[in-house]
């Protein structure tokens, strides 16, 4: 259902009172592909590796522009991670791409020792994350990757919410000194983040101001949260929506500032509630400002085959789930 709203124009765009809309849907992995292709032209040190999934990772454009800077590793992800680590020694900035499950659980020790502990400037490009991978099913639908990656010291963990943000994140990752885990998805989703919205690693974005509840969302759940907020507004509930694209390092201040106002929080992510964004937030709140929190996340199960929309509904990580969570937290805190 397309939500048509008027965009308010100010002398400078005020993202906090903007109404978000979209005219097209694109997959976030294409945003990665676009960012990588741009880097082929602008940064000669950027190289790319892929484990037999060029099409899925949208790497064709990069390969066309810089074939000598592309390394096809075949179905050998452990070797790929090591190769990427070795390439950084000569000053290269490698983007190593595969599905998110193959980029994490499959090769955790390789990332831990050869990349994280060795402080190598590798950018892990992890596509098809979460249940929205769809019909391939649970063997491929990783819901633990944010957890695994955030627990590695020195690893920056980013989960952008749309095509534009993913492209911006890719460019930012290339500039960043240190290993980065960049996680994005398979299906086409609304493009709603303005192309010129600044992207800074580690900085949350206040998308919408509100007074009754703080919603903090990442990845595909950001658009779902905006939809939910529209629904809730009809019932007189005012939602403040924060987009956290960088789960680690987490922008604690933007979250704390918001809960000072609202006193309650709903976190939303396409990930197991164990080890994801929600738990990171809960940790911060518990330490600094204990606040009641509801988790929109997969509740410690594996996924299954289905369409992205069906799966988001069944596993309760869609707008409806956010609406329910907001009403629940309001009930809890009456």
């Amino acid at each position, binding site marked *: 259902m397309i939500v048509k709203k008027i965009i308010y124009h100010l002398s400078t765009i005020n993202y906090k009172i903007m109404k978000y809309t979209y005219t097209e849907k694109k997959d976030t992995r294409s945003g990665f592909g676009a960012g990588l292709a741009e880097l082929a032209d602008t940064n000669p040190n950027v*190289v790319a590796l892929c484990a037999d999934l060029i099409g899925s990772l949208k790497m064709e454009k990069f390969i066309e522009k810089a074939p*000598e*800077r592309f*390394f096809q*590793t*075949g179905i*050998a992800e*452990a*070797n*790929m*991670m*090591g*190769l*990427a*680590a*070795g*390439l*950084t*020694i*000569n*000053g*290269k900035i*490698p983007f190593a791409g595969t599905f998110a499950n193959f980029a994490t659980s499959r090769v955790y*020790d*390789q990332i*831990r*020792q*050869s990349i994280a*502990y*060795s*402080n*190598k400037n590798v950018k892990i490009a992890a596509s098809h994350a979460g249940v929205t991978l769809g019909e391939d099913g649970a063997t491929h639908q990783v819901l633990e990757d944010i957890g695994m990656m955030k627990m590695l010291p020195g690893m920056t963990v980013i989960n952008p919410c749309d095509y534009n943000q993913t492209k911006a994140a890719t460019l930012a990752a290339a500039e960043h000194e240190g290993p980065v885990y960049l996680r994005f998805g398979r299906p086409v989703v609304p493009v709603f983040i303005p192309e010129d919205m600044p992207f800074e690693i580690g900085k949350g974005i206040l998308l919408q101001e509100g007074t009754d509840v703080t919603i903090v969302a990442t990845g595909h759940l950001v658009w779902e949260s905006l939809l939910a907020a529209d629904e809730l507004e009809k019932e007189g509930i005012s939602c403040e929506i924060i987009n956290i694209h960088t789960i680690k390092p987490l922008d604690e201040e933007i979250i704390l500032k918001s809960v000072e106002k609202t006193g309650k929080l709903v976190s939303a992510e396409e990930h197991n509630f164990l080890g994801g964004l929600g738990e990171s937030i809960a940790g911060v709140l518990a330490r600094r400002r204990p606040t009641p929190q509801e988790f929109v996340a997969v509740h410690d199960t594996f996924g299954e085959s289905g369409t992205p929309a069906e799966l988001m509904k069944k596993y309760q990580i869609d707008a409806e789930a956010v609406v329910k969570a907001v009403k629940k937290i309001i009930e809890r805190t009456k």
Partner: protein
Amino acid sequence: MVHAVNSGHPGGSLGCTEYFVALYGEILNYKLPFTMEGNGEDLFFLSNGHISPVFYSTLARFGFFPVAELATFRKLNSRLQGHPTTHEGLPGIRVASGSLGQGLSVALGAAQGKKLNGDNSLVYTLQGDGELQEGQNWEAFMYAAAKKVDNIISTIDYNGRQIDGDTDVVLPLGDLHAKLEAFGWLVLEEKNGNDLEAVIAILNKAKSETGNGKPVAILLHTEMGSGVDYMVGSHAWHGKAPNDEQLDTAFKQLYLESPADY
């Protein structure tokens, strides 16, 4: 070093001493002070990181860091961690190793990076034979030959032993020479891996074979615990520290001064 902290891996370290002396004394084209990039230099990666004692000793004696620092091995706050790492900034180390099977992949990435940069220096790795039971090595072997990474020389410490016994008892490696050749590598073999002149010669031979479209491997036959009679001929000294009396005996056999003077 191992005795002082009562932990570490003396067996493999002694077995590879000649390799390290040959490499850093004669073969490797390196510069000091150490830089991570090593542009225009040969690089070395230790994949079987547990033989850090001989790696650190070599680096210290060839000027990468002060010899006195060797006394801090495995101690709290030391740069000489139990297994090598870049984490504390110890000169001479370019990647952490210890969890086996990863070093060759990293070395291949560095080798391909050199080619991209038009740098025709070489990359050397040392791997254990037991270590080759780890599958990632074979991903790397396959890749190196397929992509014609011919500026790499991988040496296998072919001592036939591992923690739980002889490799032939634990998990036989089969005909390693034939396997590596089948994977597309040019394979050299040296039976006297604890003879310094022989090791220098085989490394020079390997060097002469690089740049011909095939990666080069050396099967280096060594004895764990070489030079110390109670360590040779057994897998027991893979990861055990000698006691005071054993240390004394070892020093005498290796023609060294007494431990107290060292």
